[in-house]
């Protein structure tokens, strides 16, 4: 197990390295206007060349790549150029992450609770009223683009319940709507998977045996079905927790929350290359290590899963 984890960890780092390099090279394809900030129009060609040279952008690509990776190892992600000129990227992230993180964690708690609850409720009333209501909810949430129902929630919930439209740190009521609308999507996801796994699990022979033994329905549900159904879901939990840091683009721009959500799009639109690189590095790291942690967590939940043997047996 430990040996396998170490191997996977190394592999994850390698994948991360490749992803970051690819993005770094992609960024070189972008227009160069982004390196000059406000003064772009006033400079002539030789001045531009001088600036680019001083930033090391005229070095061969290999050397640029090496410098970039060395910088990352020392925790230096470069300085923002346009978004907030001359401010280190890490500083910018420090002011923004807390908002996204607290909103995201709150919404994960809510959606885990509601989603798993809804999934269980739907399994217990399979084919009946609650199952149909839940399926309808899941279909609507999955099919309709998030932008549309977020808009309608903001439009009507603010009117009906007299909640503030825009986000304000000091007013707790302004937190309700963003968190709620954020958790709608993942609630549907959790409910859908929970229901599917539980229904699968209920058809297995050992459940029939447990029923034949005369175990109570409730005990079967809690002790056997739910525990087994939760294992596949454990795999996605770490990734979704890590990704709360990335924030939600729609929600944060709709309620004007000063979080991470719109930062990447903003940085790309203003061509702030160091910021984009740092963000991509972060996101790629999240998804790679989220997957890694998910596998480990799954193995921890279910002793039958032996990660070492994966791939060897087919």
């Amino acid at each position: 197990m430990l040996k396998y984890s170490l191997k996977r960890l190394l592999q994850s780092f390698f994948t991360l390295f490749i992803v970051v390099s690819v993005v770094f090279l992609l960024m070189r394809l972008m227009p160069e206007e982004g390196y000059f900030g406000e003064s772009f129009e006033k400079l002539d060609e030789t001045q531009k060349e001088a600036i680019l040279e001083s930033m090391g952008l005229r070095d061969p690509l290999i050397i640029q790549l090496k410098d970039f990776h060395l910088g990352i190892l020392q925790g230096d992600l470069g300085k923002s150029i346009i978004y907030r000129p001359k401010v280190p990227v890490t500083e910018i992230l420090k002011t923004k992450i807390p908002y996204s993180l607290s909103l995201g964690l709150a919404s994960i708690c809510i959606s885990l609770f509601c989603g798993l609850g809804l999934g269980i409720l739907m399994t217990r009333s399979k084919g009946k009223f609650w199952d149909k209501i839940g399926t309808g909810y899941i279909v609507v949430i999955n099919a309709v683009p998030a932008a549309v129902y977020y808009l309608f929630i903001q439009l009507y919930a603010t009117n009906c319940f007299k909640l503030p439209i825009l986000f304000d740190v000091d007013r707790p009521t302004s937190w309700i709507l963003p968190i709620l609308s954020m958790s709608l999507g993942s609630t549907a996801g959790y409910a859908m998977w929970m229901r599917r796994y539980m229904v699968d699990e209920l058809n297995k022979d050992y459940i029939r045996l447990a029923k034949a033994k005369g175990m109570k329905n409730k005990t079967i549900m809690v002790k056997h079905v739910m525990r087994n159904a939760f294992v596949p879901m454990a795999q996605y939990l770490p990734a979704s927790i890590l990704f709360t840091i990335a924030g939600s683009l729609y929600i944060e721009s709709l309620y004007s929350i000063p979080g991470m959500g719109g930062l990447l799009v903003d940085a790309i639109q203003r061509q702030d290359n160091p910021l984009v690189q740092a963000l991509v590095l972060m996101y790629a790291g999240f998804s790679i290590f989220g997957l890694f942690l998910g596998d480990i967590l799954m193995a921890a939940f279910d002793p039958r899963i032996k990660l070492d043997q994966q791939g060897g047996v087919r």
Partner: protein
Amino acid sequence: MRKPIQKIADNIDESLFTIHTFDASKAEQTGYSNYSYWRSTWQMFLKNKVAFFLMVLICILLIFTLIQPYLPYQKLPTEIYLDETTNMQLRNQHPSIEHWFGTNSIGQDLWSRIWSGTRTSLFIGFIVGLFEAVIGILIGAIWGYVRKLDRIITEIYNVWNNIPTTIILVLLTYILRPCLSTLIFAMCITGWLGMARFVRNLIVIIRDREYNLASRCLGTPTGRIIYKNLLPYLVSVIMLRLALAIPAAIGSEVFLTYIGLGLPVDIPSLGNLINEGRILMMSPDLRYQLFFPAIVLSVVTISFYVIGNAFADAADPRNHV
């Protein structure tokens, strides 16, 4: 007096032990089954009333969006309409007989814009879905079948899959400047991954199953194995993916438009229309400009989602009688 012992052999029908002559027509009857894959699929699909209703609805909608510009009394989607007496733009006109869904903030007819936008969005959805299916199945099949390539393609997949989709979409539409073809290209380039992985996993699972092994031993040609043994398994997945790719593509078009990297304003699409409506959202009497596109969009995406799921269930041979 002893009763004679009853023997099993006592009441035997002697005719069962006579030698039969071979009758070709009777042999034919036992081997014959009127099972047809597509007919069973269709029958299973018809049992789902909601999905069938939505499919009819989508068909009507599709035909309507295609013929709408050729119907009489239709406005042009991009023309700005002027008031005849004052020569001013007909801005934010409420729904009326002249403009069925009203006009937008610069005086364009919303009714024709919505259908033109639906056309664009559905076009994007179909192309992206088709590309996803073709490339995904091709790469997935190679990935699953050729064992030597398995590791390499898995590594490439890991790298590609770990770059967040949003970033690829945003970077590409940014580098290539927004227009219809770059938008489609950007979505295609990220869309096939899930499909390829799905197909690969399925093929790895079923390629060495006993029934395939048996077919191969009996000398069934590879083409027939693929057509009769593997394809029925894949059809349900492919149809599901294809049907789900359409709402997903429409959704990401809305997303890209929302962050300002979508289609240019002069090409109406559902994403563009919703974005225009969103700007006017705060004045209650202009909300119709958000409602109409949102309703059409929801109907289209929900229908495709439900139809796709119902068809995937129906196309699974295990659900057939």
